[in-house]
Each structure stands twice: as C-alpha cells, then as structure tokens.
C-alpha cells in the first residue's frame, strides 16, 4: 500500500488524488480496513490454488465417479463438472482465477455437489447463522463472566475465590472442548438422565418456524444450550486467569496509587482506572479466541448434531464436496478477519495511541 501511494504520488500531477491517498495512508481505520481486505484476498487466492494443486483434483474425481457410476461420456461429465465447480480444467489458469475472483465479488461461490441444485452461498446462509448465534452468545457470556471473575480474583489474591477459580480454570482449560462435549452427553444424558439429549439435537425443534416470537427464540436457545455450555465452560477459566494477571499488573501502577491517594471512590477506581486499562490488552486476544471457537465448533457441533457451519464443513469434507469446502473456508476466514478488524477498531477507540502513533506496522 505504501509503495502504491508513493508511486501514485510521484505520477499524479493533479494534487487531489495524491491528497486522497495520503489521507488514506494517514487514517488508521482505512489502513486497517484495506489490510483486512488484502488478507481476505490472499486467503481466497490460497484456497483457489490449494484446490488445484493438492493431490486429488476434485474435477477429475467428479468426472471419474460420474463415468464409473452412470456410464456417462467424458464430455458430458466434464461439462457437468465445469458447471458444478465453476471451473473447467481446459481454460487457462489466469482466466479461471479472474472468473473465480469475479464470482466471489458477486457472491457466487459455485454449486454444491452433495446437494444438487443448492448453491454454496445458500448452503452457508442456511447454517452459518446458527454457529454465529451459539458461538457469539457463548463468547459474550464467557468473556463477561471471565473478566468479572478475574477482577475479583485480582482484588482478593490468595482468597478462596482466587484459589478455587485458578484450579478450576486450569482443569477446564485442560479439557479439550470436544471431550467436554462427549462427557456432557455420556454423564449428563446417558448416565444421570439429566439432559434430554435426543430432544436437544439440531438447531430447532421440527415444526417451529422462524419468526420473531418468544416461542421461537426460546426454542432456539434451548437447542443451543449444550454447545453454549461447552464453549462457556472451556473458555471462561482462561479469561478469568488472563484478566487476573492483567488486573494485578494494573493494580501495581502508580496512577492507581495516586488515584487512591486523591481519595477517589473505590467504584470509580475499579471501573475507570483499573478495569478499563486491564481490559485493554485483552481485546485482541478476545478476537483471536473468536476464531478459535469458530474452528472448535466443528467438533462441538458434530457431537451435539447442532446444524451449524462446523457440521456442514465436516459433512462436505467427508463427501469431498469441494465447492462447499472452499466456500466455508472463505466465509470462516472473512468472519475471523472481521472479528479482528472490529477488535482493532475498538482498540483504537479505547487507546488513542494506536491511531496516532506507530507509523510502521
């Protein structure tokens, strides 16, 4: 970007264009958005070449299977494959690449092989909201509880809460989320009969139609309970521990002592002086974790048969439904990039030094 603006500045005689570019370079928000777009572009490119270069070309696999299964001629099978994958091995690589990028911009990710007649975009639109709903809500709950616990722990270091949460946090952190999910099913549903696992499967009860009503929302929440419990329990301890160490560090800062000496109220010191500064370094971590939890959803959704994007990805990997795999990889990436982008923008609001400082990045 820098080189582009430099060359552009050199070339343009009309000053207005150069001014705009300089503004873009100086605005933190714009720079950050451009970088996010660039990362998405790189990932899209990576996915494009991965599908073409890795062993097991999906087009050949599809053509061969069609010939073997239905005795179709090579030409028909190849034409079908071209329609499905929105690429045809005959056209030159750069042409395919441009078509692919144009397709992405226009929101066209090809058709699914597994479910004929469904486009990848439709398929993702059907499943992604459930993952975002369950993971997002769970993250909000987990982070809020974790940060509160962490602050309490930092204020009462060595107390019962501190020791209890530290130990529990380590143990919960040690349990991989999918094993936790399995344990919930084995112990909660099978051994103790506490959970009606068969009823809680899926993302909503059949027959309940999407509408903006209490009945629908409570049904959606009911079905999301188990995945959310797993996400919350496996992450909350980590947040508490991270927040504790961050708060502990802030409590030792001079400005906290000064604030105390000035006789400011405890509540004010806690929220404005300690809390705000302790949360600051965690914002980026929360965004990174969001990506991790979306990734972990592939296991948890599989265990609970929760129809989110994770289970869809798993099914398409097993069925070698390449267009869907490509599309989901891309969409998950965009989700994570957006999460990081939002975190960075929130950061720049919370900490003005980021906006004005750091020239080089």
């Amino acid at each position: 970007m820098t080189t582009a603006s430099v060359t552009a500045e050199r070339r343009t005689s009309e000053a207005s264009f150069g001014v705009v570019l300089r503004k873009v370079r100086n605005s933190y928000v714009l720079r950050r958005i451009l970088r996010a777009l660039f990362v998405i572009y790189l990932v899209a490119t990576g996915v494009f070449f991965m599908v073409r270069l890795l062993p097991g070309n999906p087009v050949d696999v599809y053509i061969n299977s069609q010939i073997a299964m239905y005795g179709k001629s090579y030409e028909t099978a190849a034409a079908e494959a071209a329609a499905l994958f929105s690429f045809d091995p005959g056209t030159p690589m750069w042409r395919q690449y441009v078509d692919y990028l144009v397709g992405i911009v226009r929101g066209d990710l090809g058709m699914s092989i597994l479910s004929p007649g469904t486009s990848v975009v439709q398929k993702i639109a059907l499943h992604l909201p459930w993952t975002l709903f369950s993971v997002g809500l769970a993250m909000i709950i987990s982070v809020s509880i974790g940060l509160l616990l962490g602050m309490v722990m930092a204020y009462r270091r060595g107390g019962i809460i501190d020791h209890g949460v530290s130990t529990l946090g380590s143990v919960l952190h040690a349990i991989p989320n999918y094993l936790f999910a399995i344990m919930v099913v084995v112990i909660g549903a099978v051994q103790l009969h506490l959970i009606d696992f068969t009823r809680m499967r899926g993302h909503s009860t059949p027959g309940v139609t999407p509408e903006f009503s209490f009945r629908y929302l409570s049904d959606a929440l009911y079905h999301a309970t188990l995945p959310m419990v797993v996400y919350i329990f496996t992450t909350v301890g980590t947040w508490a521990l991270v927040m504790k160490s961050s708060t502990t560090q802030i409590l030792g800062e001079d400005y906290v002592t000064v604030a105390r000496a000035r006789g400011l109220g405890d509540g004010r010191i806690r929220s404005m002086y300690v809390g705000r500064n302790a949360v600051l370094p965690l914002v980026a971590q929360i965004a990174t974790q969001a990506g991790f939890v979306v990734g972990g959803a592939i296991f948890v959704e599989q265990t609970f048969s929760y129809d989110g994007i994770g289970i869809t990805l798993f099914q398409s990997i097993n069925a070698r439904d390449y267009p869907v795999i490509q599309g989901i990889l891309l969409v998950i990436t965009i989700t994570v990039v957006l999460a990081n982008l939002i975190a960075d923008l929130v950061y720049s609001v919370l900490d003005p030094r980021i906006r004005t400082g750091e020239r080089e990045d």
Partner: protein
Amino acid sequence: MTQPTAAIVTPRASAVQGFFRELTRSKSGFVGLIIVLLIVGMSAIGPLVVDPSNPTDVNAIWGRPSAAHWLGTDGAGKDTFKQIVLGGRTVVFVGFAAAAITTVIAVVIGSLAAYFRGRFDAVMLQITDVVMTIPQIVLLAVMGAFFRLDSPLWLALLIGALSWPILMRSIRAQVLSLKEREFVEAARLLDLGTFRVVFGEIVPNMASYILINFIIAVTNAIYALVGLYLLGLAPLAGSNWGIMINDAWMKGAMFQNDALPYILSPVAMIVLLQLGLIMLTRTLEEILNPRLRDK
C-alpha cells in the same frame, strides 16, 4: 537483567539444580511433572514390556472392571487397560514431535525476521497474518482430507507445519527487543557472524520462554491430533486413545451404560496429560518470570 551470556552458560549444573528445587517446591508444578513423566514413560515403555496380543472375548463384551480386566473390556471383549497402556505412544509422539517442529520453525523464522527486518520480515508477517486468520483446526481438517496421513510422522509434520505463526510472532517481538541489548552489540562488534549472534547469543536468552511455549505447543498438538481422530480424518488404523474415543462415538457406545469405563479411560488419559502439561507451564512461568511471583 543484562547478564552476559557466559554467566548463564557456565554454571549450568547449579542452575539446573536450582531449577528443579524451585519446581519441586511448587506443589502443582511437581504434580504436573509427575503426571507428564508417568504418562510419557508408560507410553514409551509400555509397548516394550506389555504383550501386545489382546484377544477378543465374546463372553466378556462391555465387561465391568474386574481383577482380570482392570478397566473392563470393550465391545469386542478386548481388555481396555491394555489398550490404554499401548495406545498412548502415537498421541505422545505426535504431540511432542509436532511441538518440536513448530517451535523450531517459529524460533528460526521469528528470530531471523526480527534480526534482518526488511522484506523478509514483511513477507513473513504477511504469511502469519493469513495463516492465523484461518482457524488452524479447520485448515488441518481440510488438509487431512487431501493428504493420506498414514504415518504418525506425517501427522506430526502437518500439525507442526500449520501451527507456528502465533509463536513466531511472539519470538519475533522478543528478538526485536533483545537485539538492542548491549551483549548483542558486543557480539556484533566481535564479528561473530550472523548465525552465531542470532542462535548463539540471542536465542539462548529466550530459552525459558521457548521451553514454556514448547509445552503449550504440545498441548495444542494433542488437541488437534485427538480432534482429527475424533472426526475420523486421521487414519483409524491400529489403536490409540484418539481412535478409542472415535470408536466409542461411532459405534454408539456412548449411549450404553456398560461402556462407561471404556469411554472414560482414554478421555481421562488425554485430560490428565493435558492437565499435567498445563500445570507444568503455569509453574514454569512462575519460576522463570519473577514478576509473577510477587504474592
């Protein structure tokens, strides 16, 4: 803080002694170390000592724990305890091998990128940006489907090759600050050569940090590996803890009351190993980072 490296290198024996004294003083760190050593030891020595034949026994399907079968039997009447003893080798091996690969890549690239800066640094940062954006487990699942991962070494290579970016970033940040120190300048003035300055002077100063991150990398690798087994994306040949869980899940053993010991045993082994490793890192952090010790 600015000790010359010589002071760190020569009294190695006493440093190691002091290190172990600190480690044994902390209860949780000691317990963690013991757990890890026991499980790693069992997995390494077990297959050499225990007779690998584990016959099916139709009369003892889903048997309860007894004197003959300490942890009961599985759906084919095979002894669960034997499977546990023999089934740790792949998990432990892949965990440590993948972590070693990740750590080496991260340290080499991270320190060189920070030391040279310039274009190499920029390209590496951009690559990590991209790799960190795709959830590692998703990428792993997709790559697992493309490649035939029929040996543990391939699994370790794949997991190791996909998980270095985060560590590389923190190593890079550390080197950026370390390379401004006096001892690095001294080494440079002595004209020791880039290789010796980076790997002889700078990297040893991060040894504790690298060790902690190595152990964290082990836990991450085991998480990824068992996840792959659970989804059936790693080859389900032979028997190990991950395959046992996959087996219990796929054959619906989860929903049988009698299968409880068979499911719980591998889960418990993996959780214990992870817990031991995490307890170890927490304690190591306290020992090696004195700032956390002020209680």
